C-alpha cells in the first residue's frame, strides 16, 4: 500500500493559503501548517496595543485558518535570522522596505528544513502568479524554488496549471486536474472558490502580510538606521516603530508620543529603558525619548509632549520626567504652538 503523503503549508492567515490547503486536503493529502513570526507581522500587535481596536474581538488569523482547516499549526520565531533578510536583501526591496523575494526564499527554505526534519513530502503555498509585483511574478517564482533548495517539491495549488509540473503531480500524489490556473491581481476566482468551500469571514489584509510594505513604517525604519549609523535593529526597536507618533527634532534624539491609552500602556513597559515624560497638570500622553538628550533637549521634548496634551492651549503645562525609571522630576514648560512642530520632524 502506498504511504500517506504529507504536505506542509505556509499559512499567513489570508484567504489564499486557506484555499490552497483545502484544495490539497481534498486530494487526500495530510497537511500541517507553518506560520513564521518575523516581528514585522501586522497580525495581532497593533490590535493588542491599541485600545480602540480592541472592541472587535481579536483573533490570530493563522490560528483561525488552521482551525477552519482542521490542521495543526506550528508558529516559528524567526526574528533573529530574519534580520539578515531585511538588512541585506540580495534581490533588493519592493516599493518600501519590503524584501519580498528574499523573504519568500527564506521562508520556503526554513519550511524545507522543517519538512525534511519531520519527514513531510512537499510544501504548498497560496501564491498566485502575477498577484504581487515583486515576489509572485512568473519570472520570480522559479527563483524561490532554486534559491530555497526546494526545487519541484514546491506546489502552488491555486496557479499550478500555469506552471511546470511538480514532483507531487508527476508522482501521482496529487492530480493536476484538481488544481487551479488562477493568475493576476483579480481576486474574483479566489472569492468564488471560498464560497464553494463554504469559507466566510476570512482575513483580507490590504497591502501585504507585514509592516515592511507600509510606507510610513518604512520611513521610520530608514530613519532609525540612518541615525544609528548602521542597518541594525532588535525586536524592541521594530515593535516601537509600530506605536505612537515619532517626532525627530534633532539628529541625536526622537520623541515617541502615545496616540491613545493602549499605546501609553505599551510604552509604559519601556520606561526603564528610556527617558519618559508624562503630563501631570493636564491629561496627556506618555512619551519616550530615544537617543542621548541634554537638559535643553528634554525641555524641547516636554514642549512637544505638552502640544499633544489637553493643555496645548494653556500658558504652562507640568510634566514628570523619569530617567530610565529613576525620579521622577517635575518640569514646567510652555507647549509648542502647532506651527512650531516642523513638518520634517514628524516621521
Amino acid at each position, binding site marked *: 500500500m502506498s504511504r500517506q503523503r504529507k504536505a506542509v503549508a505556509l499559512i499567513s492567515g489570508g484567504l489564499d493559503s486557506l484555499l490552497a490547503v483545502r484544495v490539497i486536503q481534498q486530494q487526500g493529502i495530510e497537511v500541517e501548517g507553518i506560520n513564521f513570526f518575523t516581528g514585522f507581522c501586522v497580525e495581532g500587535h497593533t490590535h493588542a496595543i491599541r485600545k480602540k481596536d480592541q472592541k472587535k474581538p*481579536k*483573533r490570530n488569523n493563522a490560528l483561525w485558518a488552521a482551525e477552519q482547516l482542521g490542521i495543526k499549526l506550528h508558529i516559528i520565531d524567526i526574528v533573529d535570522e530574519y534580520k539578515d533578510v531585511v538588512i541585506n536583501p540580495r534581490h533588493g526591496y519592493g516599493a518600501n522596505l519590503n524584501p519580498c523575494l528574499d523573504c519568500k526564499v527564506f521562508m520556503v527554505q526554513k519550511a524545507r528544513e522543517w519538512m525534511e526534519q519531520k519527514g513531510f513530502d512537499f510544501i504548498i503555498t497560496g501564491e498566485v502568479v502575477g498577484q504581487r509585483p515583486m515576489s509572485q511574478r512568473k519570472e520570480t517564482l522559479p527563483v524561490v524554488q532554486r534559491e530555497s533548495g526546494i526545487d519541484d517539491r514546491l506546489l502552488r495549488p491555486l496557479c499550478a496549471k500555469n506552471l511546470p509540473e511538480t514532483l507531487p503531480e508527476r508522482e501521482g500524489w496529487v492530480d493536476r486536474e484538481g488544481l487551479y490556473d488562477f493568475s493576476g491581481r483579480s481576486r474574483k476566482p479566489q472569492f468564488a472558490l471560498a464560497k464553494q468551500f463554504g469559507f466566510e469571514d476570512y482575513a483580507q489584509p490590504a497591502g501585504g502580510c507585514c509592516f515592511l510594505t507600509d510606507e510610513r513604517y518604512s520611513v521610520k525604519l530608514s530613519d532609525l538606521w540612518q541615525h544609528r549609523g548602521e542597518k541594525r535593529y532588535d525586536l524592541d526597536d521594530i515593535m516601537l516603530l509600530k506605536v505612537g507618533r515619532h517626532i525627530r527634532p534633532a539628529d541625536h534624539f526622537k520623541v515617541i508620543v502615545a496616540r491613545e491609552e493602549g499605546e501609553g500602556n505599551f510604552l509604559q513597559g519601556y520606561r526603564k529603558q528610556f527617558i519618559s515624560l508624562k503630563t501631570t497638570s493636564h491629561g496627556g500622553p506618555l512619551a519616550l525619548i530615544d537617543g542621548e538628550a541634554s537638559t535643553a533637549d528634554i525641555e524641547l521634548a516636554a514642549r512637544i509632549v505638552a502640544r499633544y496634551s489637553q493643555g496645548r492651549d494653556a500658558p504652562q503645562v507640568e510634566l514628570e520626567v523619569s530617567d530610565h525609571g529613576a525620579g521622577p522630576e517635575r518640569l514646567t514648560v510652555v507647549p509648542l504652538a502647532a506651527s512650531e512642530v516642523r513638518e520634517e520632524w514628524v516621521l
Partner: protein
Amino acid sequence: MSRQRIDCSRLLCPMPVIRVQDKVAELHPGDELEAICTDPGALNDIPAWCRINGHEVLETRSDSDAGEYIVVLRVGEDS
C-alpha cells in the same frame, strides 16, 4: 505528571503562543502548564492553539488588578 508555569508577561501575540508551544514540546502527555500573560489576546490565541493541536484547556481567567491573563492547559496524548 508535572505542573509548570511560564511567564509571558509583556509579550504580545503570537509570542505567548510560541512560548507555550515550545514549552509543551518539552512536556509529556498529561502534564499541565500555566501561562501568565499580559496581552489579553492570549485568552483567545492560546486556547485556539490548544484546540488545533489536541491539548485540553483546563482554565482561562483574568486578574484585572494585576493586568494578567492566565491560561492553564493539559498536554494532549498525541504530543
